């Protein structure tokens, strides 16, 4: 029982990271129709933004984290202005290929900058543990789950209870009609990319202490976030959350109860099963409806 509590907590923590990465992926997809293949690298950059501010520069915790998030916001804006905007009149497929190219570029730029040696990003609650019914749980895992829940709550408030969020949802649904309502579509799309980069960056900051900071961490995360959105439903925020948590739990529980060699089997098996039987996922629309 103690084992199970421990594993479920770790699975939820990992799942929270996947869920945040998947949310970043989904808000970009809903607003622009672009499947962002660089999404995994966004998370990797978040981790290394933290490495830069906290390890390399040695800034105090609050400043370091805020600085890393600010760097990611800047990166999102840059990505919008230098990648999305110049390609925005091209067919969506061109933009998607563009994100693949940028993803590869980012990964190699990180390799050149930070080297191939993994770095340790410590948690603010490093080595602290909580005991629940005999189970030993790292406080970091609990903090990650709580922080993710708070972020999701804030995101919900933003999208439903602010003028900015309602305008963002309008742009996501019909750009032309949004323009005719006087909305500054380009500003709102830029903000969408910034938000996606910030969420991915926070996911990276939380993941750093759970894995090593490694410039190759982006791809596995992108695959998991992708699996999460397929299972949860493409374009659906509740789907991204549910899918992310499912993939995280499946990975941790699978590694422990089946075999660590097959830990990804459940998540990717579920993804393939969903694609075959229920391509719209638990909550979402069918992928081919957008095309």
């Amino acid at each position: 029982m103690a084992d199970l509590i421990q594993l479920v907590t770790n699975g939820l923590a990992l799942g929270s990271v996947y869920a945040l990465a998947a949310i970043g992926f989904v808000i970009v997809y809903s607003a622009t129709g672009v499947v962002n293949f660089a999404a995994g690298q966004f998370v990797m950059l978040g981790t290394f933004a933290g490495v830069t501010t906290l390890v390399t520069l040695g800034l105090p915790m609050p400043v370091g984290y805020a600085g890393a998030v600010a760097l990611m916001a800047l990166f999102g804006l840059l990505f919008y202005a230098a990648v999305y905007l110049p390609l925005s009149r091209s067919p969506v497929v061109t933009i998607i290929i563009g994100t693949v190219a940028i993803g590869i570029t980012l990964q190699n730029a990180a390799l050149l900058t930070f080297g191939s040696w993994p770095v340790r990003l410590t948690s603010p609650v490093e080595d602290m543990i909580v005991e629940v019914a005999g189970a030993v749980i790292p406080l970091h895992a609990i903090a990650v789950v709580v922080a993710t829940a708070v972020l999701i709550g804030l995101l919900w408030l933003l999208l439903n209870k602010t003028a900015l969020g309602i305008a963002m949802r309008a742009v996501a649904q019909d750009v032309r009609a949004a323009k005719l309502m006087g909305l500054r579509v380009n500003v709102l799309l830029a903000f969408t990319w910034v938000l996606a980069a910030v969420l991915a960056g926070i996911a990276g900051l939380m993941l750093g202490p759970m894995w090593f900071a490694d410039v190759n961490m982006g791809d596995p995360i992108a695959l998991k976030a992708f699996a999460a959105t397929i299972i949860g439903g493409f374009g659906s925020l509740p789907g991204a959350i549910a899918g992310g948590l499912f993939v995280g739990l499946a990975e941790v529980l699978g590694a422990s109860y089946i075999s660590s060699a097959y830990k990804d089997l459940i998540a990717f098996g579920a993804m393939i099963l969903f694609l075959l039987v229920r391509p719209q996922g638990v909550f979402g629309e069918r992928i081919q409806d957008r095309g």
Partner: protein
Amino acid sequence: MSALQATGITKRFGGLLALSEVDLTVDPGEFVALIGPNGAGKSTLLNVLTGLSAPTTGRIALDGRDITRLSTHDRIRAGLGRTFQHGRLFERLSVIENVMVGAANRKGRSEAELRSTAFAQLRRMGLERFADQPISALTYGNRRMVELTRVLACEPRVLLLDEPAAGLNTGEVEDLMARLRAIRAQDKIAIVLIEHNMGMVMRLAERVVVLNFGVKIAEGTPAEVQADPAVLSAYLGEGAAHARH
């Protein structure tokens, strides 16, 4: 000064001349109908006026200010409003949220202000009981009314309506006409109406502009336009105009 003045608007799509040297002037508070057979260029003209499509040549001024090079959202902020021929409500927003998006173009409004402005607009149109419903719960007639409410929330001084009565039943058309009259009286906004329902055009419009194959072929009061041989032949074929003589 004219509320809206378009001068020499020409629009080419490759080899097709969709609009040729079209002039359109709308005075403040005036009700102008834009009619013409299918493919005459009416919707293209609205697209050019709202900046969704750039004119090949021509100038557009709103309240005397040149808006030819402004983006769509800046034209809306400057006082232009437009609805689509085929409804384009935001399907995944509630009724009141749709209207809030319309009101959002005015600077510095908080969510609470937007919500109360939108609710007041809905109440004025008798739609307040649908405020929190999803768009999918509305009847077709009410969807069109919500679209009208949404564009009014933009606070336009010149409102361009692209076939607002399409698909409405007789009772709904009467209701729409009453609303348009009331809106015009209260808000003092000029309306440009594209409409195939001639009864509606004749009863509402002070002036009618007729387009055919991208060219303005007639302009005048509803009675003048109805009697114009060029208009009759455009609608009914060459023989019709001669048959009257």
